[in-house]
């Protein structure tokens, strides 16, 4: 079965009882049992819910893993994965990780004795050098958020395997539609399903997929015991979103590439971050490990003032946190996705106050470019006038 067909029929395209073409929403907390000693497949909905199970089965199939698990948010998924470790363990983490992940690692898990060292994960030697005797895992994101740096997944996985470490990656930006890290040797994939998988900016959800059954069993224990599960309605909405994932990703990344190319020639835009652009480091690695460039473009303006003015004057992209929806979203990493990272750390990663991140949606690319062009003109006009006024 080809990938677009898998997305539609990922084993969950009909209800076995009625043939309903949409999986039912089991809005239920508990399941009546027939016997006090032997329970049926479903017992209590924190443990298992048929709607959530359909989504979990679906994502496992799409990522090519043994076990999929659904959580209340992307952070709940990552946090639950991090509970696999114990005090005294150490992680090597790509420094360009999502701000929320950085925050729990440095302000929550560190308190409980799980230490992390942040390194540039595009540099395999740097990753290797950070490994200590107590290191248990490597956690990376590629493309990274928001500067879209590329990490070589197969190389990291091979190195980790040699050292006996687990490998975890956040595949939110790509989705399994474009990149399947488990096939490249990774052990665990996590997602903020709020983004491209859900795709409509109308729910919060997280997913994790393990490559093997044993790891899946451990993570499932955490899911049930810790309980940060995804509810049935949201599980159903993610499943519904996944049905159009292929079509959305294709259209959105086509527009993103057009917009990224166009931005490179726009005055006032100092730098454009998009994996396909000529000269971008990691371009070839990304081409090897993924089947598309994705739909997120970051770009840096000539000043922080212009960036803020642009954010204030765009009309089409919604100025908001988040990404991956059908509507384009322009965000400001410095005060949004990466606000929880100290300014010095941000700066070191190239997340300057002049950087904006555009998640390209399903609108016509011409409409987005027209709006950006108008807003950019307005942004530079205003700052010029301000300068004249002193």
């Amino acid at each position, binding site marked *: 079965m080809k990938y677009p067909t898998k997305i539609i029929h990922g084993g969950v395209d009909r209800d076995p009882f009625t043939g309903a073409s949409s999986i039912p929403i089991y809005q239920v907390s508990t399941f009546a049992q027939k016997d006090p000693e032997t329970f049926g497949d479903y017992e209590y909905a924190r443990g298992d819910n048929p709607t959530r199970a359909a989504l979990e089965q679906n994502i496992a199939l799409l990522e090519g893993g043994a076990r999929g698990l659904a959580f209340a948010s992307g952070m709940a998924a990552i946090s639950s994965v991090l509970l696999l470790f114990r005090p005294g363990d150490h992680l090597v983490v790509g420094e360009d990780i999502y701000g929320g992940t950085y925050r729990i690692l440095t302000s929550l898990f560190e308190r409980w004795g799980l230490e992390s060292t942040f390194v540039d994960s595009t540099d395999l030697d740097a990753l290797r050098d950070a490994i200590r005797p107590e290191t248990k895992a490597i956690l990376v994101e590629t493309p990274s958020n928001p500067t879209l740096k590329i990490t070589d997944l197969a190389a990291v996985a091979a190195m980790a395997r040699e050292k006996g470490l687990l490998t975890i990656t956040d595949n939110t930006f790509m989705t399994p539609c474009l990149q399947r890290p488990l096939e490249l040797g990774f052990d665990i994939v996590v997602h903020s399903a709020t983004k491209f998988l859900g*795709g409509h900016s*109308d729910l919060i959800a997280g997913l994790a997929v393990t490559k093997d059954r044993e790891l899946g069993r451990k993570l499932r224990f955490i899911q049930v015991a810790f309980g940060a599960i995804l509810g049935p309605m949201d599980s159903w909405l993610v499943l519904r979103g996944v049905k159009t994932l292929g079509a959305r990703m294709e*259209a959105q990344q086509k527009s993103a590439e057009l917009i990224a190319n166009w931005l490179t020639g726009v005055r006032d835009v100092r730098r454009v971050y998009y994996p396909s652009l000529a000269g971008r480091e990691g371009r070839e690695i990304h081409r090897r490990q993924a089947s598309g460039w994705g739909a997120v473009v970051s770009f840096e303006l000539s000043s922080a003032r212009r960036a803020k003015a642009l954010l204030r004057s765009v009309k089409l992209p919604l100025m908001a946190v988040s990404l991956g929806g059908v509507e384009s979203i322009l965000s400001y990493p410095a005060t949004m996705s990466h606000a929880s990272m100290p300014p010095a750390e941000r700066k070191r990663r190239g997340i300057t106050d002049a950087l904006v991140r555009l998640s390209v949606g*399903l609108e016509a690319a011409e409409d987005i470019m027209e709006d950006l062009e108008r807003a950019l003109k307005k942004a530079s006009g205003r700052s010029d006038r301000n300068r004249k006024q002193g």
Partner: protein
Amino acid sequence: MKIETELAQAGSRWDERTGAVSMPVYHAATFRHPGLGQTTGFDYSRTSNPTRLALEETMARLDGGHRAFAFASGLAAIDCVMRLFKRGDRIVATEDLYGGSFRLFEKVYRDHGIEVAYADTSNTRKTLNALNGAVRGVFLEVPTNPLLRIADVKAIAAEARKRGILTIVDNTFLTPCLMRPLELGADLAVCSATKYLGGHNDVLGGVVTAGTPELSGRIAFFQNAVGAVLGPQDSWLLLRGLKTLSVRMERQQKNAAVLARWLSRHPRVRKVHYPGLAGHRGRLCLGRQAGGFGAMISIEVEDPAMVPRILAGVRVFLFAESLGGVESLITFPAVQTHADMNEEIRERLGIHDRLLRLSVGLENAEDLIVDLDAALSL
């Protein structure tokens, strides 16, 4: 603004207070009045509900109409349009019409004294000849269900208007993404939103779009007075479906074109009805009035004995009634969608025991071909 942009951001800017980019689901029956004789614009959800309104406003913009109205099903939408007519009025309708519309006309409205005459609306001359006497409305399905014949909406609507006859187009198969009947001169467009507009086989709904304030006023009156309105949760799901309408249509009709070409060369398929195929009678006409040929195909297989085997043998296609969703469906019109049409009419029209209807979904086209090929060889 292009249609893709309109669709992607449907309802995204409604909530000023919180900035929520998804339209809230207003599960409210009633609305508190600010004071005596004052209204927030919403009084009671049968009359108007914010979530339903967001959907209705989006549809009105897509159709280029004055206002749109959402109903509990496609048939509830058609029923509302029928209420514009009165006892003694006559209507001319497409003869190979959706069976549910046929049933509504014959078994409900005939008893109320509204008589529907049927014509081959792909024949403009015949259709115009039928627009006489007490005829007050012409109801066109384009393309028709299931034979995919094409009526010339522009020519028929122009002549109907001269004679004071309302033109209503059931646009379920193409959606405003591919064809906008009001721009072609029709007075009203209806859609079963259950199909492409919703697009996920998980919600029932119907939409009427009216071209003028006068017609809007009358439809609004009936919508409220009769009350077959769409609920807020389903309105929201439809709105969510609309966001991907354009990409879905594009891909699905691309798949359909590939499939239709392949089927037309299949030795066990006697005839393929698809308006995009060279040699289809309505191809040029549809090419003029629509931005695409849609994703519906009907096929005539060699032998009626193949039908049960195909329906039981498909693995990717779902054997189910309905159409327009992301999943490909296969339907047997003679016993499913058109069961209420008498056999004699069905036979004459060609809705016989060898005809199967395919709604082509978002799957990979090659997988669909492999699936059908296997089922056709059983």
